[in-house]
């Protein structure tokens, strides 16, 4: 019962902060609300007993990626309300499109089986088990991510360099 309540509280925080991300005028406020939503998602991970993902989500998303966003917003001096508005008609059409998309998702996923699941082995989200899976079954993709990061570093340097 307690965790159901926690689920709804976290969901309300998550949805509210996500709406504020796309509706707040200043980009800095959007970044800060996105950090709040990332913490809410980490709370959801903890509720699911996925502790590794919760910690990685805070470190990588709320820590590294959002700092990068904040740096860029402040570097570009974007904290002005200079963004020209799109026409209201376009916004209404966009929201209707989004609602149709949500209806499609929910309709498509409505038929999944809702049988009670057994939580006999509830430790799959712990670092020990995930590490075993990662280094046994997914060793090659894990090593390939280092190549991806190297390519990303080189690409970022090449793009960001002044000619």
């Amino acid at each position: 019962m307690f965790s159901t309540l926690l689920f709804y509280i976290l969901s309300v925080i998550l949805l509210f902060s996500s709406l504020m991300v796309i509706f707040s005028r200043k980009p800095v406020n959007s970044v800060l609300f996105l950090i709040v939503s990332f913490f809410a998602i980490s709370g959801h991970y903890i509720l699911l007993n996925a502790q590794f993902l919760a910690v990685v989500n805070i470190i990588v998303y709320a820590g590294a990626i959002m700092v990068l966003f904040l740096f860029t917003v402040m570097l570009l001096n974007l904290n002005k309300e200079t963004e020209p508005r799109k026409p209201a008609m376009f916004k209404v059409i966009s929201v209707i499109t989004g609602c149709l998309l949500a209806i499609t998702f929910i309709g498509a996923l409505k038929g999944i089986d809702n049988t009670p699941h057994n939580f006999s082995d509830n430790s799959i989200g712990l670092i020990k088990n995930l590490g075993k899976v990662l280094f046994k079954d997914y060793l090659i993709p894990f090593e390939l991510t280092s190549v991806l990061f190297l390519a990303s570093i080189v690409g970022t340097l090449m793009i960001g360099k002044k000619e």
Partner: protein
Amino acid sequence: MDTIITSLQGISIQSYVWLCSILFTIGVVGVLIRRNAIVVFMSIEMMLNSVNLLLAAFSVYRNDPSGQVFVFFIMVVAAAEVAVGLALLVMIYRNTQTIDINFLNKLKW
């Protein structure tokens, strides 16, 4: 910890499907209605996160750790993508003095 897991059975996977669908939709609407490229980028991050949350939820409900490994890989790819994307945005701003996506329509027609 055991109490959390046993009480988790009160939350059905359907709730997570609803939550993540709505979150993904908010991201799509954000991409559509904003003209600031950074906010568009943040909306894309939000969509990635909703998919992550649903993957983790299914992984826990199905007792399969592969889902959480996939979430980990999605986070890795998102980190690389953000680094390159923000470098592109800084470069665009340096060349055009704006990041309004309506001015970036050279590839549109």
